[in-house]
């Protein structure tokens, strides 16, 4: 009971500290902007720990953060192998293939109004397919190793990138296009000098959404068959053994990898679209 009360206190304390920081005079500095979410996360983890211990939640339902941390520490090499298999081989390769394919497709659709009209509705329809369903099919087609995981990722990221890129390539204002007309610029000249830069904010929107989809897709696909390594494999088998601390350790890896991936893409975005109003301050 004391622990539960403590949890409430920790929560209030964290919130109070953050209010002070966020509304204080240094709120705009980089350190504070990093510190605030970190404090929030830390508070969350503390509350979790205290509640799990205080309410004596069994390990097989929800492990405490300390349990997860020790499972994490004890299985570093396993986690690393799983990470390589699922993230590097499955998610990353699928992401690269899917995004490039979507990009090329977007250019084709951009060049042909007919294809764009025809493909966009179909694309939107296909994008609505629940991947959970495509995963068993793709595992059946592409085998148990990472190829099928990459295929699932390709399917998942393709449409968000395609739709955003197509929308982005049409984002130029009439005046900007007319300017190119008066220069009698060729298609590729106006593509590289006008439409691509103007489309970048949109393309990155798609790329950012896709980062989270990629990892989740690769993990989910492993539930439907995999070699004996991989984050999804480990999660599903550990659930069977009720080794929930290990499950959560993998989830932590997933969250770390996913957030890092997102962060990297967001940073590239920032450096390439610094000129866009949403990036200016």
């Amino acid at each position, binding site marked *: 009971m004391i622990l539960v009360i403590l949890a409430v206190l920790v929560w209030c304390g964290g919130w109070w500290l953050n209010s002070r920081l966020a509304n204080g005079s240094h709120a705009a500095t980089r350190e504070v902007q990093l510190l605030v979410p970190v404090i929030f996360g830390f508070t969350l983890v503390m509350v979790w720990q205290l509640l799990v211990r205080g309410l004596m939640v069994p390990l097989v339902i929800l492990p405490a953060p300390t349990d997860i941390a020790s499972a994490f520490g004890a299985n570093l090499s396993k986690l690393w192998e799983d990470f390589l298999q699922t993230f590097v081989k499955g998610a990353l390769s699928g992401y690269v293939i899917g995004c490039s394919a979507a990009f090329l497709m977007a250019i084709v659709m951009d060049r042909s109004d007919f294809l764009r009209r025809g493909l966009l509705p179909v694309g939107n329809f296909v994008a609505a397919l629940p991947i959970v369903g495509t995963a068993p099919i793709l595992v059946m087609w592409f085998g148990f190793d990472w190829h099928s995981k990459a295929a699932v990722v390709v399917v998942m990221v393709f449409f968000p990138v395609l739709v955003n890129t197509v929308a982005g390539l049409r984002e130029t204002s009439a005046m900007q296009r007319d300017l190119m007309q008066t220069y009698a610029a060729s298609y590729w000249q106006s593509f590289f000098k006008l439409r691509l830069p103007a489309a970048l904010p949109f393309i990155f929107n798609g790329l950012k959404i896709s980062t989270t989809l990629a990892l989740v897709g690769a993990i989910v696909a492993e539930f439907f068959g995999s070699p*004996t390594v991989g984050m999804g494999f480990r999660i*599903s088998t550990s659930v*069977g053994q009720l080794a929930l601390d290990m499950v959560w350790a993998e989830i932590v890896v997933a969250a770390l990898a996913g957030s890092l991936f997102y962060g990297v893409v967001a940073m590239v975005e920032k450096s390439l679209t610094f000129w866009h109003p949403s990036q200016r301050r």
Partner: protein
Amino acid sequence: ADEVRLQLQWVTQAQFAGYYVALDKGFYGEEDLDVTILPGGPDIAPPQVLAGGGADVMLNWMPSALAAREKGLPVVNIAQPFKTSGLMLTCWKDTGITSPADFKGKTIGVWFYGNEYPFLSWMSKEGISTDGGEDGVTVLKQGFNVDPLLQRQADCISTMTYNEYGQVLDSGVSEDELVTFKYEDQGVATLEDGIYALEANLEDPAFQDKMVRFVRASMKGWKYAEANPSEAADIVLDNDASGAQTEAHQQRMMAEIAKLTAGSNGSLDPADFDRTVSTLLGGGSDPVITKVPEGAWTHSITDAALN
């Protein structure tokens, strides 16, 4: 009536016919029980449901139940309607496999979720590594269908005599194209489909009494199903909410299941338990249980139920 929630470990099928029969025929009602049967699936770990209070009893394979026990969830086997194991490996004959020694260099699909331990134990008994390569087997985590075999992504896959094996045959493969290895015959069988409850609950006499009545009615259901397999299959079909099961398949499954339950009156044979434990402890590195479990089963319920 007393409420009992039973967590199955798979979707509604004839594997669980005894319980559906007991429900349908009113055997539970006769014992003044109000039983709810909760279907399972690959995403459901019955021990977890039990721990969360979502069910009062569960069906489980013993490896998984013992693992839960070691993880700090004290579940106890209170009855064991299944005497023999239905687990086996099914291989293409044209791969040249005739005995376990031929597994070297082959790809084998195995169910995980705790079911891999009998397999690992078997392989270590045979002296075959499970890390792939020339002298070992390549292990795949098999999903819950027989595609890997049919698509020839694997040379052998795990099947249950009553379910997946039938599916392989259903897809047009004839029995003489296949070679099978029953875990039972290889001496690595583990107990399947036992009834488990939480140790703490069993200390409560009222709960004990409820379980006695539950086991009694369930066994009555099982024996009825054995005697009337065709009717039992129909009852199962009526209870399948997903509408995915077919009549023919359930009929055959019931026939096979009857063979597995035949030798049991519901009471656990301690010798079977000991064999299961030794198989699990012989699983080589990274075993699912590390020591012989204490108090993992009790006869008190079955003794009372079957007088």
